């Protein structure tokens, strides 16, 4: 495999991660599901590429593209952490508001109510 091809394949992986970053800007359960698929695809593509990476060793363009990929992964990681932290803390707030506090002083888990949907 040529170094240019390695670069192109890393670029393809990055575009998957970039799409996940776009979705994470508006995180919703649906968006997070789509992110999982994109991360899975990116990870498997990169794992498949691993044996051929040596053919791009020392190539500045391939290295640059790999650094861009790292940047995109870092961005995804940060967005994921921020959104997770937002929702976890929000969950704690909801718990405290709706169910009070535990004996240890922590917010109680928010009550979960089941729903039944009947269609006829």
């Amino acid at each position, binding site marked *: 495999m040529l170094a240019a091809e390695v670069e192109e394949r890393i670029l393809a992986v990055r575009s998957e991660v970039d799409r996940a970053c776009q979705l994470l800007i508006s995180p919703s359960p649906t968006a997070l599901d789509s992110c999982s698929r994109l*991360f899975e695809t990116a990870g498997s593509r990169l794992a498949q590429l*691993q044996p051929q990476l040596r053919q791009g060793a020392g190539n500045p363009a391939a290295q640059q593209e*790999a650094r861009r990929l790292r940047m995109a992964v870092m961005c995804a990681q940060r967005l994921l952490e921020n959104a997770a932290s*937002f929702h976890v803390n929000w969950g704690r707030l909801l718990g405290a508001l709706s169910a009070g506090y535990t004996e240890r002083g922590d917010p109680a888990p928010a009550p979960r109510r089941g729903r039944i949907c009947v269609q006829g």
Partner: protein
Amino acid sequence: MVSLLSTLLASSSALNAYEQVLEVTQSNVANSSTPGYAKQTQELYALPLNPSLGVTGGVKAGVVQDSRDQYAEQNVWRQSVSLGQANQNVSSLTALQSLFDISGDTGIPKALNNLFSSFSAWGQSPTDTEARQTVIDNATNLANSFQQAATGIQSVEQDTNQQLQTTVTQVNNLVGLLQGYNTQILGGDRNDAGLESQVYSTLEQLSQYVDINVTPQADGSVTVLLGDQTPLLVGAQQYSIGSTFQQPDDAVYTQAPPAAHILASDGTDITASVTTGQLGALLNLRNQVLPSYIGDAYQPGDLNTMAKQFADCVNQALTSGEISGGPNAQAGVALFSYDTTNDADVAATLSVDPTVTPGQLAAIDPGPPEVANGIPLALAQLAAPEDPADEINGASFTEFYGNMASRIGSALNDATSQQTVQQSAVAQAQNLRQQSSGVNLDEEAMTVVEFQRAYEANAQLVTILNQLTEDAINILASTTG
């Protein structure tokens, strides 16, 4: 008849209520693009209905509910303060990096290489006047390059001082606006959605400059703290911050530039608590980054250290040599001079003594054994020193300069990455704020559980992807294919 009147009254009350709902809806539509505006909802409640008693029911308008979520707002401010910091770092470090060329084509590295080359050429023709003159010319160029670098950094420092003062003024102006809004709210405008949107829009602007902690009060006003402790606004009372530049009492380098300080309205030094936002970035640049190059109360700065040590090395070699051999040997003269009273000003004052002539440069190392070109050879050796005394912190002069330059390059690279990530993080926080406004607690409790599972799954995938990316970078960086 009574029943008909009651029905008419109930209908009239309902029409009034719905008119208010319409007004709130119109306001929501009209302000959909207003910065800081949060959706309002008109509460309605049912009136009792008991026809046998002539109570005809109906609907009545209650209070206007604000969908603003303080937790989501705080999240936006937290991301915004980091973006402000990254933006300022990119801007300041870009200006600083332009002063440090690592290509070797300009500035100190080029002048240093040229001087080393001229030492070598002089070593090959130790008595050649032209070779000696080239040494003097290249030494002059190097001294000028140090001066230009020092002047450039001092200029960045002046700009930073100016920006610090401007930023402090901007913070005070924005808090002044908030103080005006608080005054209006305390005067009876607390249910004005437009006024509230102005308050929150101003708070979002303020959060780019400093880390703020905002507490909405029962009277409708907002209390704003800088960090967790310093009051900026309480009710209608504004507490302005200030900036000052002063040397500590225990300063070692008393003539070095004084450090910048931020003062609370009571004069308390709050510099240590201002670590984020645009103001935090400026303080870090002014009190940490720039002094590492041109010094402060406790350090001479790397540029001055390098200029001094290089000048001393060259001068020491030249003055230890002899212009002519024999019993009446004449000692050589020093080439470089600088302000010896201020170690934090060496680079800015480094120069070549204009009275030095080619004939005064000593080439002979008196030994024993005497070597006719010993001094220029020793000077040329400074390019790749073998003697630890000719190194700075274990590095050659060229390497030491390279480390200074790469430090800025690396910091700028980090800041640029941080800026890119933070732009997305702010957009995300704004979307989360949008999502969380006007939520139903019961329904959202379910959603949060769904979120937590999805985050855990995604976090594991990203960890694997991160490791694969690091492996890829390491493989690509290896020299053997």
